């Protein structure tokens, strides 16, 4: 059964695209057939984070408007053969997307893939509502910071009212993914802690991605962080999260950076 998963947040810059790429790659690595779809029309970036920016020919809008067929627009990842990208248009604006057109593309993707990960644009307007429109599940990416939590709450309300599932009286399964978390600062009371965020949002936790330099290193070279350095703390956190998406029970921890010497002394831990 194909699953449509929207990665959303309301607020910009919290890590939606990074998370879409990292989770898409992690799911593909465990054998799932995955497409990551960029809904950020006009400001696409998923292609860049995936390292496919020079291979974009056709895009989501072309497919929605019937200018190109879906297989022409899909870009296969060079590292993982069961990972694909459907890029957004860089030149058009979000009004070129229609509810009906997006529905058609999603329905066609569902016949080809196990997972359809929709990378939502920031905001609560057309692009964001269309990205979540056909979702079965949602990941709400949240930073431990007041404006991000507030926007996440707003998005949760929209997932419960504006999606096709909500209109049918069904539920969109929602998960919070906390990114840029710093356990030391949270322990000192300088940062909202996990329990505070979960209590406020009243939504189950998918994973905790620690603040890490590895995220920028991976996007610099156009590789999902889970592929760039699978042993890094954020990669391990994303891999755990992807296993939870598959229904596995994985103990919730905040992975920490391994130091060179400690790493050698302790040996490599299986991911």
């Amino acid at each position, binding site marked *: 059964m194909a699953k449509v998963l929207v990665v959303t947040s309301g607020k910009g810059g919290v890590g939606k695209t990074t998370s879409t790429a990292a989770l898409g790659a992690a799911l593909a690595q465990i054998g799932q057939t995955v497409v990551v779809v960029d809904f950020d029309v006009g400001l696409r970036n998923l292609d860049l984070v995936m390292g496919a920016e020079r291979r974009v020919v056709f895009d989501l809008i072309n497919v929605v408007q019937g200018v190109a067929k879906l297989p022409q627009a899909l870009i296969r990842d060079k590292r993982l053969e069961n990972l694909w990208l459907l890029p957004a248009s860089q030149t058009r604006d979000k009004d070129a997307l229609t509810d009906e057109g997006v529905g058609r593309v999603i329905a066609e993707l569902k016949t080809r893939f196990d997972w359809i990960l929709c990378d939502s644009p920031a905001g609560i307007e057309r692009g964001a509502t269309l990205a979540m429109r056909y979702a079965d599940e949602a990941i709400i990416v949240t930073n431990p910071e007041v404006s991000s939590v507030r926007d996440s709450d707003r998005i949760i309300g929209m997932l419960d009212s504006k999606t096709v599932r909500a209109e049918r009286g069904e539920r969109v399964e929602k998960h919070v993914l906390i990114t840029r978390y710093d356990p030391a600062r949270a322990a000192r*009371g300088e940062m909202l*802690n996990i329990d505070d965020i979960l209590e*406020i949002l009243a939504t189950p936790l998918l994973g905790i991605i620690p603040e890490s330099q590895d995220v920028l290193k991976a996007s610099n070279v156009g590789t999902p962080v889970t592929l760039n350095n699978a042993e890094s703390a954020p990669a391990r956190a994303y891999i755990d999260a992807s296993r939870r998406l598959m229904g596995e029970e994985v103990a919730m921890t905040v992975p920490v950076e391994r130091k060179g010497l400690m790493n050698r002394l302790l040996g490599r831990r299986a991911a």
Partner: protein
Amino acid sequence: MSLKLLRLFGSRNATAPVARERLQILLAHERGLLGQSDLLLTLREEILAVVSKHVALDPDKVIVKLDRGKTVSTLEVDIEVPNNFDKSKAPVEQRMAG
């Protein structure tokens, strides 16, 4: 400067509880305003309807807050009643309701 540095290392400088408190108050309010289906909104509307049968109220001055504790939760209802209230000003449909 040195004072700031001292406070940086002291637990008195824990700002996360402030963030949490501000968010809880704000979101309880916003959830009601945005018409999302949740308990607080329902409670707020029903309380407003009941009280409005007898007292003309400014709907914005009815604040319902739910504080979830570990063992018990408290429901705080804060209704501002104008001193010169006039029963006849309550909306007719709400007076008839119930």
